[in-house]
């Protein structure tokens, strides 16, 4: 639950900022996507201000390298080291628990899983596979799960939809729910809104949750997730934002801004006061 008052009156201690990518920096699409007006300059300004900045995305349609190249092409100052995405986090989980996944992921994300043992699978790992979410592929994943004595379903994110240039588009969470329902299992989520995911990014910046802020367009995964570890959560009215989000039954963002530019301008004006 958000405290009362304006969010920018509570941001004097902010040392680090986490930014969602899709819907905050740019809208993705078949032709590479387009930057959201003001966002390129906002990232530059934020970095020049001396604040720590990391990019927290549930993007699993491509590798981090590919994503960074795409964002650079749109004019954003982003390095690979600053990007936190679910695939590397998932690889750590697999390794820690000796899991051999049956993968249902986007072909362009495959390189992130190079070297992972996928023989004789003992879990199913899904990402935003888009067109790979065919009946045949989902049924294969389903059969692996029902064949396991202790079915483990790992989902890279649980988003419902995101915005593409041609409209809102189904995200991995929908197919996670379908498999959960089919097999009576509960998926483990790697990526937002899992607490561990936010904490890893904060640790990398060396910033406490109370000194950090998340800016995102997904009320549950960005805002709810950030607030669950004690960060401020700021919702932008770009990307997948819909007016209903301002009356969400369980998540109450600390503030709403029209776009990233407005968030950064207000933050920099009020910081350190």
């Amino acid at each position: 639950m958000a405290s009362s008052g304006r969010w920018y009156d509570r941001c004097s201690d902010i040392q680090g900022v986490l930014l969602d990518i899709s819907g905050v920096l740019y809208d993705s699409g078949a032709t590479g996507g387009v930057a959201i007006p003001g966002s390129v300059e906002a990232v530059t300004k934020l970095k020049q201000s001396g604040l720590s900045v990391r990019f927290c995305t549930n993007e699993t349609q491509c590798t981090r390298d590919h994503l960074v190249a795409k964002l650079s092409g749109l004019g954003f100052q982003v390095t690979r080291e600053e990007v936190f995405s679910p695939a590397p986090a998932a690889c750590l989980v697999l390794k820690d628990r000796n899991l051999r996944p049956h993968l249902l992921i986007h072909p362009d994300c495959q390189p992130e899983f190079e070297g992972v043992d996928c023989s004789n699978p003992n879990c199913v790992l899904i990402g935003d596979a888009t067109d790979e979410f065919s009946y045949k592929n989902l049924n294969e994943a389903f059969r692996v799960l029902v064949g396991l004595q202790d079915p483990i379903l790992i989902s890279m994110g649980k988003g419902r939809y995101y915005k593409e240039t041609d409209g809102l588009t189904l995200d991995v969470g929908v197919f996670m729910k379908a498999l959960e329902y089919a097999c009576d299992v509960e998926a483990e989520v790697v990526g937002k809104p899992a607490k561990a995911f936010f904490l890893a990014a904060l640790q990398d910046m060396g910033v406490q949750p109370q000194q950090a802020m998340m800016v995102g367009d997904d009320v549950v995964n960005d805002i709810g997730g950030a607030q669950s570890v004690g960060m401020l959560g700021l919702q932008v009215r770009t990307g997948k934002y819909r007016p209903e989000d301002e009356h969400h039954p369980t998540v109450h963002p600390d503030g709403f801004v029209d776009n990233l530019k407005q968030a950064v301008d207000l933050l920099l004006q009020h910081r350190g006061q």
Partner: protein
Amino acid sequence: MYYTAKYIAANTKNEEGWKLFMLSKGRCLMSRKLCAVLVDLSGTLHVEDTATPGAVEALRRLRECPLKVKFVTNTTKESKQMLVNRLQKLGFDIQPEEVFTSLTAARNLVEEMKVRPMLFLQDSALQDFEGIDTTNPNAVVIGLAPDMFNYRPLNDAFRLLLGGAPLIAIHKARYYKKSDGLSLGPGPFVTGLEYATDVRATVVGKPETMFFREALKTLGCAPEEAVMIGDDVRDDVGGAQTAGMAGILVRTGKYRPGDEEKIHPPPTTVCDSFTQAVDYICNKVLQT
């Protein structure tokens, strides 16, 4: 008081109203003036390609009673005509207009709502939607359609739902058995779309109250004047009783010992077979 509660319930969707309405009804078949019998097909009249013992003859006897008969079934794969052909081959005297399926219920709902559905159905089931306008769709109907449960069509459905289109599910089965193993049913895809959009699907098949009411409406009988015979204690008997009908559970098909304990209130009565259920009903009718 009875009609007041029913009126309140029907007009305000008030749950308390419904409870009051349900409580005000008798549950004993004896006290009812019987008007109609609803009969499940698979597991009750037949198991795969064999009629249950005595069922063909029992149906003939049932028809000699002054009762209306309708056959009700959850199907997503077969059109009504295909079902009827199969039953006639087994010797049953059944006409297509006497069969009410979950596909029929979906079609009726689509017509009532005056919507143009995007149909997730196999070709074999599409027959039941002949003549329905599906151009420029503004509703989504989900049955079993492995060829359509792919990302693009699901995304099209998702966008329709976000635009306010209603979601209609033939039923929500998790999976079904195919010759090469278990396969995903409509339920997971309905559930996924519900999660994506916060839209709740209207499920039209058994055990939904609406399904039984629709079937009875075509007969002009009220639920309290009707009895359902079936082998599925939840979908047939429990569903019918919730809708205000009497329910007879038969010990054929998917029946397992102890099934009668699974619903509250319990089945109105339990019979060994469809034949015995018909005897029970005919006796009651003769007594009143």
